[in-house]
Every structure is written in structure tokens, then in C-alpha cells.
């Protein structure tokens, strides 16, 4: 399958990209293109104009403050995997990045692109939501900051407005005593997850998030509350069944077992001595 005709605009800067987006109502942003290009080729996604922001260095800028780490939206999975970005989460980003798809995909695909695509089974939405990240969005109108939980809406759906581009992700730095783990079950190496879990044990900011179960990565409410209140592991694992059942769109004993197992294993990992 080959894509239907579209206009192509390669942006020389973020500013130029925002201008191009503002000009075309049916414009789509492409960065690594690892999800969007196949969808275009299958003609499942159609658009008038493609605005290419791939490789823009200003979108690959990263910096760290005492409290948070900023990672440019144009940073590729491979850059994170290779340790070229600052680390807010005791290596969780790096470990997770190395398990996204295949190296060839990781060399092209970007963290911001993954969020904007909002595939329910993708790795970053789940992990960044667990870390309490905030997306910094830019448009011709200025900057907007949106917490991940508000950015993710549904299957391939975000609260990005027309003309907005994700510029960076702001991720709170985990304190030394915090623990974080992610776990993925997929049919084979490189395939999208059948179950995706991220757990952060960090006092009141503790969170457990499940992806590939509902239309978007979702916080497990009771498990997360119990983590935050310092409950012991056996009590927390007792809450997994209910939280998973609430996320599954319809009862499915197999998926229930799959996700529960994945969540319990991630919990075991963060509680491991």
C-alpha cells in the first residue's frame, strides 16, 4: 500500500512548524513516522499536509533541575536507550526504551511522537503517566502545560488542540529512596504490548499505571492509593483484581489474569529488597 497524495512541509524550526500547522486545517505532524507512516500507507489515516519535525535539534534539548528533568519531544527512543538523556527515574526510562519495538524503530521513533500517537499499548504513555510527567505544548498562541493524565484521552486520541505540538516532557525527579519498575508482556520481542505496567513507589506520588488494557494508559486507583499510603505488599496485591477489572472494557478471564500477573510482578519488583 502506498499513501494517498499529501503536501509535505519539512520544518526548519519549531516556529516554522507551528506556522505550517496554523496554515493547514488538515495538517499532521510527523517526527519519526514509525506509526504514522504505516497508517498513511495503509490509507487508514488521511491528511492534507504533513509537517515534518523529525531531527529538529531544538526539540531534542534536555536539561535537568533539582526537581525535574525535561526531555525534548524529538528525542528518539534510541537516545534514551543509549543513556544520552538525563535520568529522572533511576534508569527506568533507559530500561524501558531498550524494549520498545526494534532498534531500527527506536532510532527513528520519538518520545513525543509516541505520546501524540497515543496508541493504547505504547510504552511511554504508561511510563510517563506513572512518573507524573507533564507535557509542554507549543502552538502559535504560546505554551500550554498539560499533565499526562489530561493529555491522554482514548484510542489514538489526545487533548492536543489543532496547531499544537508537544515540545518537551517534564518529569519529576525521583528521590533516591523511591523505586520504579515497568513490565511488558508481548507476543514477541518488538511487538506492541499485550500488557504494559509501570509502578512508581514514591510516597504520596506513588502510582501504578496499566496500559494495553483500556483505551488509554490508566492509573490503577486503589493500588495507587495503597502504594501512596504505605500499605504492605500483600495488601496492595489484593487490590489488583478489582482495579484491572474496572479498566477492562468487558470481562475477560484471560486478560484479567494476564494484566493482574503483570501488575503483581511489577509490584514485586518495586518492593524487592
Amino acid at each position: 500500500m502506498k499513501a494517498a497524495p499529501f503536501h509535505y512541509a519539512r520544518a526548519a524550526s519549531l516556529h516554522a512548524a507551528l506556522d505550517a500547522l496554523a496554515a493547514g486545517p488538515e495538517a499532521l505532524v510527523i517526527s519519526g513516522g514509525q506509526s504514522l507512516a504505516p497508517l498513511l500507507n495503509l490509507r487508514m489515516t488521511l491528511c492534507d499536509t504533513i509537517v515534518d519535525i523529525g531531527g529538529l535539534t531544538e526539540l531534542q534539548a534536555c536539561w535537568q533541575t533539582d526537581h525535574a528533568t525535561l526531555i525534548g519531544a524529538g528525542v528518539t527512543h534510541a537516545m534514551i536507550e543509549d543513556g544520552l538523556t538525563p535520568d529522572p527515574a533511576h534508569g527506568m526510562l533507559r530500561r524501558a526504551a531498550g524494549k520498545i519495538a526494534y532498534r531500527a524503530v527506536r532510532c527513528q521513533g520519538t518520545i513525543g511522537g509516541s505520546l501524540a500517537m497515543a496508541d493504547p499499548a505504547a510504552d511511554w504513555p504508561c511510563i510517563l503517566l506513572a512518573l507524573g510527567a507533564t507535557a509542554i505544548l507549543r502552538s502559535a498562541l504560546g505554551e500550554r502545560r498539560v499533565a499526562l493524565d489530561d493529555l491522554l484521552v482514548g484510542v489514538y486520541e489526545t487533548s492536543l488542540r489543532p496547531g499544537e505540538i508537544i515540545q518537551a516532557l517534564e518529569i519529576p525527579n525521583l528521590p533516591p529512596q523511591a523505586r520504579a519498575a515497568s513490565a511488558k508482556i508481548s507476543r514477541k520481542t518488538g511487538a506492541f504490548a499485550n500488557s504494559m505496567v509501570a509502578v512508581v513507589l514514591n510516597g504520596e506520588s506513588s502510582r501504578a499505571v496499566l496500559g494495553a488494557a483500556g483505551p488509554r494508559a490508566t492509573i490503577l486507583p486503589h493500588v495507587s492509593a495503597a502504594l501512596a499510603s504505605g500499605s504492605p505488599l500483600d495488601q496492595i496485591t489484593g487490590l489488583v483484581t478489582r482495579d484491572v477489572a474496572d479498566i477492562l472494557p468487558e470481562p475477560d478471564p484471560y486478560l484479567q489474569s494476564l494484566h493482574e500477573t503483570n501488575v503483581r510482578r511489577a509490584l514485586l519488583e518495586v518492593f524487592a529488597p
Partner: protein
Amino acid sequence: MGDDATHDAPGWIGRSLLRKEDARHLAGVAMFVADVRLPGMQDIAFVRSQVAHGRLLSVTKPADAAADVYTIEDLPGLSVLEAGPELEAFRQSPYPALASGKVRYVGQAIAACVAATRARAEDLAERVAVGCDELPAVVDAVSAMTSGSARLFEHWPNNAYIARTISAGDPSAMTGAPVRLRRRFRMNRQATVSLEARGCVAVWDPRQEELLVYLSTQGGHVMRLGLSRALGLPENQIRVIVPDVGGGFGGKNRLLPEEIAVCAIALKRRHPVRWIEDRREHLLASVHCRDHHYDLVISAEEDGTIIGVEGDVHIDAGAYALWPTGSFMEASMAAGNLPGPYRMRGLNVNTWTVATNKAPMGPYRGVARPGACFAIERLVDELALHLGIEPYDLRKRNLVTRGEMPYTTIAGLKLDTGDYHDALDTAVRMIDIPAIRALQRARKPGAPRIGVGLAVYTEQSGHGVVEWSKRKSRIVPGYEAANVRMLPDGSVNIHVGVQNHGQGHETTLAQIAADELSMHPDQIRIRYGDTATTPFGFGTFASRSIVFGGGAVGTTARKLALKIKAIGAHILQADPATVELRDGHVVTAQGSVSFRDIAMAANVRQEMLPVGVEPTLEATGTYEPQESAGVFSYGAHAVVVSVDEDTGVVKILDYAVAEDCGTMVNPMIVDGQVQGGIAQGIGTGLFEEIPFNSDGQPLATTFADYIMPGATDVPSVRIAHFVTPALVTEYGVKGVGEGGAIAPPAALANAVGDAFADIKASFNETPLTPRRVWQAARDAMLSAGPVA
């Protein structure tokens, strides 16, 4: 990988020479159909059916591009080829090049659109409107045979292409048997998924007055015959060139309607046209395979002696039979291979080859035997579990022994040579079953379960006239041909009718000729894949090429060697009976003359020839084995898996194979065939599947949903070789192309079953997806009683 069988062979046969064809592939300079660039070439995209079953009411072309859109009405004069076996009882399913009257599967080609690029051709295809009156879809081969089912072909009495019962031995022995176990098995539908999909470029050549066709196929000569009949064009006005082919696996041994349509359109236009099948088309509408359903009873004595197998086999053959032989062999081979390598007293199997609203079925590496092996090897393990016998011991009790060879199975297959017990014992030793049993006993709660599975298979290969005539094949590939030509400088070209599509023929056939001619293989080029230059041959499939093609090259080179000797002896003034060939020379005790001098004499200096000897050094010959019922390679597979009982995820921990394919021409290439076949067998066993919904919509049309095993899912297989030369072939070779793919689904399912032997869970449907594994284990736990 494997035991190093690269012994100091006296000649070139038996050496692990690096493959001649690999240099161009590694350098990325090979030439596949999609690499062919002809001036003015345009691309074709097909408008395909969105519905599984429907009456075609209208096809509306865009007014501004009507001349670039072809329907079946625009291609008059095409003949619809009769396909399937030449049997009165086999019902015909006329398959036009583009849909006519009805569509019968999602993806069936309705119209062809021509444009400067594929993207523009797809743009045009989107603007073609298809009117269709949807009919109920037939999606299940078993329920398709019930009286209430919708019918694909209204004039058929039911949906069966053919129904046959294969019965042998003593049925009453089974009826009264002390042990009778009934199990149902299902091997789901797959695509053949060659790395290179299909492709076809066609152009009318006014100088030669012929249609030039570049085609990705396993056999150019046979496809030319089909094209000739479909197009109504004499064969001497069609030239088929088969460039590099990136895998066929059986699927490219059938002529597709798209290929006929491309050729028909080329005849109507003054420029080349091409169609390059993309992966979505491949999964949707190329050759499908497997999709076997078994409902069987195995009968046995209390001591585990197998008495026989009976029951029903349904083959879901899809909407049409593909030329030439359709998928008819699936049913007869499935039934015929159910006894496997075991002694049995009775066999009674009813088979139905059923038309459904799915893409047509064709052969795929192993043809029917992966299903039959899955069924019988699962039955053997179920029987062992039922009787409390180690599966290994139960196999030993029933396997045909070396002393019984040649042994004719209850289904009539003549197992020729080998030692099946030795293969099984070796595989079991390599995998170390006692160590695994100890691991299983030491397993801690919550840890993954460990299981070990065995499967023994036979692989009929090199079968010729007897076997194919028995099958009523429309084409009887009972021989192969070779043309061996020594050029004036003493170098050799050999043209063959077999078709390399990854098998390494350029290397192995050169090794054979090198031994016969006493030359270095580097001085011998193997040429194939062009109907204008090669002798007629059937191509490469059915694990036949080393037997037939190797035999043809060997025996023809031998003929040429005699002439070389005669000329050489004349030049040396020696008695031809006293000379021999050695390292590119004709040698006597007194002296020697090089092939170069002999070839010069034969080709351009005829005054040096002996009286009565014709000029040139060229021989053409055909070859068929002394017996054409086939020779049987065989092997035992042993696999260790871990199974996560909470997620159903299966991981392969170890894989060992003990196999015997007779004489190995190139042991490295044999290892590659085993490893590659097992990779595909793992695909069948664990990953690959095209499910359909109740409307007949396929649910896996991209690699996002059609899961192929990846590098990390395929272990490095440990291989032990046995060499029991065949008695009726040149050099004692047997085929080895398919064996690797036959046993893995059975071995894997047996291993997963072994992991759950304590609760007697039964894993009887491929692929063993995590959900299926989890579900079968859960069902067994529930029926085993309260959870411990």
C-alpha cells in the same frame, strides 16, 4: 550449529562449501522482480473485494481514466483453467483472472488499475466503485458441510470439492480395542509469507513477437504452460524469466489470477506493466495454507501398542482451486501421513476438502504433513498420558524398526531406509530428558512450568511418476532435465529446469557436476530461471530438486565426461578405457591433456577430433530415480519449553534434532534447511494465524496482527545428522527441504502438554497463543477438581 559433518570428503559432494549465491545477496545487488526496470513501465493496483461472498452487480470506472481500468469484460478471450486433480469427482471452481459474476473471498481481485506509479494506481483503484449484493459467508470448513450452509457454487450439491475415505487394514480391530481415545485437533490458517512477496512484469516484445514475463515463481516452465492456456498464446511466444526469488515455500508453485491479468493487460498495451504484491495483499489474497481440522480416535492395546486411527479430516481449502493442482493433496496427504512412522493395523479416515469464503489454499513447506504429524504425535502423547507411559517409551514400542525396512505403512507409503529408533534415541539423549524430569520435580510454586516434547516425522521426497499419477496430478513432475555445456575455454555452464529460490542450487548442483567432471565447482555455473535457455523442467517444490535436479546434472555430466575422455584419449593417443579424469585433465600413465585443450578441439579445432566424434561438448539428459514412489527422510525433534501458567506465554529453552536425509551434498546447506524449516514450524506452532470473523473478514492483514517468529523467538537448533543413503537415487540423496517445518508444531504442543501433565491439560490447536495455552490449562484445572 550441528555436528560438523564436513569430513574430508574424497570429492566435492559432502563438503560445506560456502554458497555461491550469497555474495550478491549480501552485497544487495541481487535482482528480484521488483528490481526489474523497463523503459515506460507502469504499475498495476487491484481493486479487491471488501466482502467475503457476494453477487457482483456493477463496477463503475472513473470517467476520466476508464481506459486504465480493466475488468474481466475488458479482457475477453481469457480461458479459465481447470484446476485440481484430474478426477471426475473433483468439482470445478472456475477462477477467472478478475472476478466475474460473484466474489468469493475478501481480497479477490475485481479490477486492475494501471498508472505511472503504484501510488497513483492505488489512487485510481480508490475511485472505482463496486456494487455488490452481499451473501452469507461460509467461514468454517466443518459447518460448511451441514445442510443449512450457504454454498459457494450453487450447482454443487454441497461445499465439498471432493470427499474421500481412506481405509486400510482391519477396521474391526479398532472398534473393539481396549483403549480408545478421541481428540479434536485444529491447525489454523496461515499465509506462506516468503520474504519477497509475489511479483510479475510483462511486456510484449515486437521483435521476438513474444510476451516477455518476469515472474517470481518456483517453476517458470510450468507457469508458462498455464499462461499459454489462459492467454491463448502459443508457448513459443511466451518467455518467462525468473530472476532471484526470495522464497516460495510452495505458494509460488501456483499460478495466480493476478499474474494472468497482468499478462493479459500487457498484451493490450504498448508498454511494460508490473504488479508487485505488497504484504497486505500477500496476507489477504495470496496463497493461504494449513487450516486442517481433525476429529480422530486412536485405538491401542493396554500396553500402548497402537492399533489404528480413525475419524474425520476437514481441509478448509478456500474459495477456488489454484492451477495446476489446487490444494487437493492436502486431504489425501493428511490421511496418508496420519500413521506417521508407526506400525498400525487399521486406518479409516473420512476426508473433506471444503470450499469456504477465504483466499484459495495452496501448498506450504511440509504440505499437509505438519497437520498430520501434529495430529498423530499429539495422539501418541495423549495415549501415553492416559496409560501412564513415558511418551518416549510409547514411541519406541510402535516405531518401525530398521530391520523392518523397507516398510509399507498401513496407508501404503513405502518407508525405504533408515533407523527411526536411533534418531529418536539421539534426540532424546541430546535434550537430556532425565535432567528435565529432575527440573520438573524441583520446580517451586509460582515458577514457570517446564515441559519436554518429542515428535518423529517422515518426509516423502523425490517422488515421481508413480506417486504423482496416483494423486491424479494435472502435471506429473516425474523427471528433471539438465544441459551441460563445456565452452571452448573449458569452463562449464549447466542449465537446469529446477528453480533456486533459496535452496543453494548454484552451489550444490555445481558440487555434483564437479565430482562427475573432476573440476573445481568455481569453474561450473548453474543457470536456471529462463524458459528461453533452460531445458523443460518442473521447478523446485516437494523436496525434489536434489533428487531430480541433482540426478539430472550428475547423469548428464557423466555422459559428457565420456566424450571428454574419448577426445582426450585421442589427443593422448591412448585407449579411452585406460584414461581417467583428474582435476581438469584427462590423464593416462603416460601423460595428460587439459579440458581447455579438449574443449578447444571440440568447439573450434575440429581437426583434432577423432573420426566419427561430433563437435561441441554438450549433453542434455533427463533423470528419474529407479523407483518413483519416493524416498523418505526422517527425523526426531525434541524441544524444551517453559510455560508461564498465569499468562500462557511459551518460551523455547532448547531444541534438538536428529535427522537423516541420506547423503548430504552440502552439510551446511542441510543445516540451513533444518534451521529454517524449524523457524517456520515454530511460526505454525506458536505464532502465525489468519483468523476470520463470522462475516468472512480476515483479521490479520498486516504484520501488526499476523505474528511471525522473530530472531529471538527461534533458538539455534542443535542438529545431529545420520546418513543412510537412499538405494534408488543418484549418490543416495533424499530431499530435506520440508522436514524442518513438519515436526515443530507437534513437538511444541507435546512439550506444553508435558508441562501440564499433572493436570492432564491438552493443547490441540495451533498456534499455541498465550490465550489458548492459558485457557486449556485453566479448563484442565477446573475439570481436575478443586484448585490445590
